[in-house]
């Protein structure tokens, strides 16, 4: 049975830990709120971008000539971009991404790609993938909790260049989507070649609100400066930037949400542990007192 002293020390140590987890929970909440605001801020821009691109694509008609959209055969080399966090202590957040990234790689291999390479975003994912002996062609890190558009642009540039140079034939993006504060979902989406239906958008709704909003109709008669095909070619890189930026923001929000949940659970567990230990300590103290009384009584008895 542990002594009072031992239990006391453990209580002090657990209290210290719970202070840390509580602080991390609060920090994660604050960062989560900011990340959510940034997702909201991006939404109008992303929507405008999609509409513009759909308009230009419809006017350009034939989009298959664009290098960033050209479908390639399912062989050669595919790349999987895994977006994880730079830091741990966020529950299963990083593990989930790595797991789905590996699953996505298997799927690509099954489709016929000879070789699958990983592009890691975030310290944790890169480390784990390398540890598992996977090939990591580049490891971006240092911005997972507060990504900027410039960060996204650097990544987009890297993967697009490699794709255009023919070093990769398909690029898949795997990241944690922020559904709500309590729910994150790992998703994988094809980034390159840019899927046709993403560029074209939903044709039906656009025409349906042509009478009220006019977005579908007016772009059919709009004056393009430069030509639709040229404009589309310029728009695609921006679209890729935006897609990656959104993935980074979603991942950041999901990371903070996951960390908050994990730390909140840890704090609750610490509290429970302290309660249990306090009880154990009181018992030990009672036992010690009882023991002493018995000894005193026995001593007095011996004298008489």
């Amino acid at each position, binding site marked *: 049975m542990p002594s009072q002293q031992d239990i006391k020390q453990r209580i002090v140590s657990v209290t210290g830990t719970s202070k840390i987890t509580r602080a991390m929970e609060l920090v994660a909440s604050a960062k989560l709120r900011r990340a959510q605001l940034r997702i909201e801020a991006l939404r109008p821009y992303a929507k405008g971008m999609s509409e*513009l691109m759909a308009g230009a694509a419809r006017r350009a008609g034939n989009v298959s000539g664009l290098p960033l959209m050209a479908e390639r055969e399912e062989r050669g080399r595919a790349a999987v971009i895994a977006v994880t966090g730079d830091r741990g202590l966020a529950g299963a957040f990083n593990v989930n991404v790595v797991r789905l990234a590996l699953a996505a790689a298997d799927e690509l291999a099954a489709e016929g790609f000879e070789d699958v390479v990983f592009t890691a975003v975030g310290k944790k994912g890169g480390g784990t993938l390398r540890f598992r002996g996977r090939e990591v062609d580049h490891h971006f890190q240092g911005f997972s909790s507060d990504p900027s*558009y410039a960060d996204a642009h650097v990544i987009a540039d890297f993967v697009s260049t490699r794709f255009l140079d023919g070093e990769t034939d398909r690029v898949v993006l795997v990241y944690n989507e922020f559904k709500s504060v309590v729910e994150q979902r790992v998703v994988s989406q094809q980034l390159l070649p840019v899927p046709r239906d993403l560029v074209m958008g939903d044709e039906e709704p656009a025409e349906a609100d042509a009478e009220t909003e006019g977005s579908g109709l007016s772009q059919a*008669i709009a004056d393009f400066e430069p030509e639709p095909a040229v404009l589309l070619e310029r728009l695609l890189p921006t679209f890729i930037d935006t897609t990656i930026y959104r993935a980074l923001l979603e991942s950041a929000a999901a990371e903070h949400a996951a960390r908050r949940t994990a730390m909140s659970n840890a704090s609750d567990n610490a509290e429970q542990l302290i309660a249990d230990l306090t009880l154990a300590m009181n018992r030990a103290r009672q036992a010690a007192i009882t023991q002493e009384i018995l000894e005193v009584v026995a001593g007095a008895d011996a004298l008489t």
Partner: protein
Amino acid sequence: MSTATSTDERQLAVKVLTPEGAVFEGRVRMVVAPSVEGEIGILPRHMPVVALLRPGETRLRITDGDDVVLATTAGYMSVEFDTVVILVEQAEPYHQIDRARAEAALARAREELAAAGDDDEATDRAKAAIHRAENRLKVVDRNG
């Protein structure tokens, strides 16, 4: 008379959007934006246009003599039925640009470029920063 007045008061609904949020949202009389093929001025009842923008300054005339000038990066503009949507990476109102800070940013970016060496990523980043800083200063000088 009344019709003439209503024509004069016809305005454009303008949104200037960046990935980091909306920089300007409101009604204006005229928009002048730097298209890749030259400055393009938009008045109410303009025909639908989709244009590619180069870095430069975008001018929003709210009323006569009251302009909002934005230093904008490359981007896109779409005009339809008196609605103008400008999508750029960054937009900064000129009166919020601090000359000293912009100059410091330019100097810092140049140092970063010099220090970047063989690192392509750092070089790209530094170059982009230099362009932004130079554009900002140009806009300040022109309106200063």
